[in-house]
């Protein structure tokens, strides 16, 4: 039994999955892009050439310097290194993603599990609620919420989380509604298993693939909408190095000092593209239907 120990089996399964993943070049590129963004954001103080340029630093002699070896992305209207600010900007983007999806996904999945499994009035209440949230365009809703509260990063994160859960609820609802008639669910019931066991031990593990694909694809959109909010002045406030804010303040000096908004804009695009390529790759790998 040397070759078929459980651990060897598991290891072989992982290696097979990695092999299949590797054959999809777009997914591998996506993974590399996402990893790069994470590494750069985590080690920002070490990676950024001018970490002190992140806050309210001002150096008017160096304002609006075009891209050069010292400042690959140029400098902004206060003479700050744009590359350093983009690198720190990724920290904010990823904080936004983790916070928004960290709240919205578990909450949305939980409601989806309950609606799909119990049906009846539980389903009616939850699914009508998702309809209400779907009927309102996301950006409009986020604008309204952040405008009603005050425009801060925290409030825009809360607004996005409030908007995001219902997509996961709908996805998990349809998944669970079809899974709950599987015989292993009935077998668990006949064995006397609790609803808690059936929801979280039998059904949830079978939703993990769809959840992870959907969440990866979502990450890019959360960054985009978050950037949109701060572009409109409703997210993080200057001098915080937020990518959306940087695009917006750089736009004042277009087209002459184009690098001021183009590079932060490309940086946003880079993360969105990375998450989407990775999400598509995972979807093919795990063979799941999302939306």
């Amino acid at each position, binding site marked *: 039994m040397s070759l*078929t120990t459980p651990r060897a089996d598991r290891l072989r399964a992982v290696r097979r999955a990695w092999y299949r993943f590797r054959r999809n070049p777009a997914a591998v590129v996506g993974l590399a892009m996402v990893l790069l963004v994470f590494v750069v954001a985590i080690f920002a103080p070490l990676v950024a050439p001018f970490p002190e340029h992140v806050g309210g630093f001002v150096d008017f002699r160096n304002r609006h310097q075009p891209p050069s070896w010292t400042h690959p992305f140029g400098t902004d209207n206060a003479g700050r290194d744009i590359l350093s600010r983009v690198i720190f900007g990724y920290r904010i983007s990823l904080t936004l993603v983790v916070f928004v999806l960290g709240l919205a996904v578990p909450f949305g999945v939980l409601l989806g599990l309950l609606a799909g499994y119990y049906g009846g009035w539980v389903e009616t209440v939850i699914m009508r609620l998702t309809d209400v949230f779907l009927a309102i365009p996301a950006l409009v809703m986020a604008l309204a919420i952040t405008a009603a509260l005050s425009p801060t990063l925290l409030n825009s994160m809360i607004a996005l989380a409030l908007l995001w859960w219902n997509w996961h609820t709908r996805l998990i609802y349809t998944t669970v509604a079809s899974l709950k008639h*599987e015989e292993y669910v009935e*077998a668990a019931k006949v*064995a*006397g*298993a609790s609803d808690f066991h059936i929801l979280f031990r039998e059904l949830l*593990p079978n939703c993990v693939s769809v959840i992870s694909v959907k969440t990866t694809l979502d990450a890019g959109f959360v960054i985009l909408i978050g950037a949109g909010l701060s572009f409109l002045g409703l997210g993080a406030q200057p001098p915080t190095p937020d990518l959306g804010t940087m695009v917006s303040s750089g736009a004042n000096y277009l087209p002459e000092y184009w690098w001021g908004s183009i590079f932060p804009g490309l940086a946003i695009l880079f993360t969105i593209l990375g998450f989407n390529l990775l999400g598509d790759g995972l979807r093919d790998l795990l063979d799941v239907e999302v939306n």
Partner: protein
Amino acid sequence: MSGNLLELNQLSKRFPVRKGLFQRVVGHVNAVDGVDLTIGRGEIVGLAGESGSGKSTVARMIVGLLTPTEGTVTFDGEDVSKQLGTLAFKRRVQMVFQNPGSSLNPRRSVADALKVPLRVHGVPSSTWAERIRSLLEMVELPATFAQKYPHELSGGQKQRVAIARALAVQPELIVLDEPTSALDVSVQAKVIELLLRIRDELDLAYLFISHDLSLMRNFSDRVGVMYLGKLAEMGTSDDLFLRPQHPYTQGLLASIPVVSEAEEALKPTQRHLKGEIPSPANVPSGCRFRTRCPHAFDACREVAPTFHELSATHASRCHLHDPALAGSAEPTKA
């Protein structure tokens, strides 16, 4: 009190049929309609019938997955109709499902599946490993299978795990809903053999559901034949297979493929069943089998037949057994 382990008394299940935007109830499906059935301790009772006759619905009511619309379920002398969902009852009755492909959770290992009933019924966790090993041994699987996932198992192996799961809490009755119909013939025979051996070792009772009558013959002590939610004929295996009395049973038997001359000679001289089983939402008046019965006469259209006791063990629901009515009809046997 009779010594029966399980007694079904006029058990019925009606499903509402919903239509339209507001899911209004527009009618009912009488999936099971007044079934009386007994199972003794250690007895194997077969339940046969075409697809849609209500066999699975009976099974699901017995294990508490469905609540009966009418009628009672008596287990070990106690009416459990109201407590089909309770733990104490669940320990004593278990079920093996039809589709090995979906009866095990693809994300959970064999050991995980076997632990569910152990945990629920409070078996101390220190004994689980040993218990899982002996359960796997009981169904003739090596102990290493505990760590395997369903996709690594064949259909027959999955069904063995499902049987082990049912055995985990030492039940007294196992409902087998077509446990072998998705398997190859050779695998089927092995699983049946296994089920018989386990029955002998543990003195279990089985309710064995199948539309395959040839499988029932050697397996079951008694057999009931269902048609559109009602039992058409009930008797010992010999009653049914050697002396079938109901035209439906005769028709079913006529459509079994046979392998030997001797078996051919045993077959009733009966035409094959014609036509399709009608929808249970729209049951024919009088005798529900009359639309497909080669002997149907006027009374069959108007009066629903009752059970006629043909012997102590054998009963059939057909007007042909009623001398007053059958006078006008041709006799059962040529």
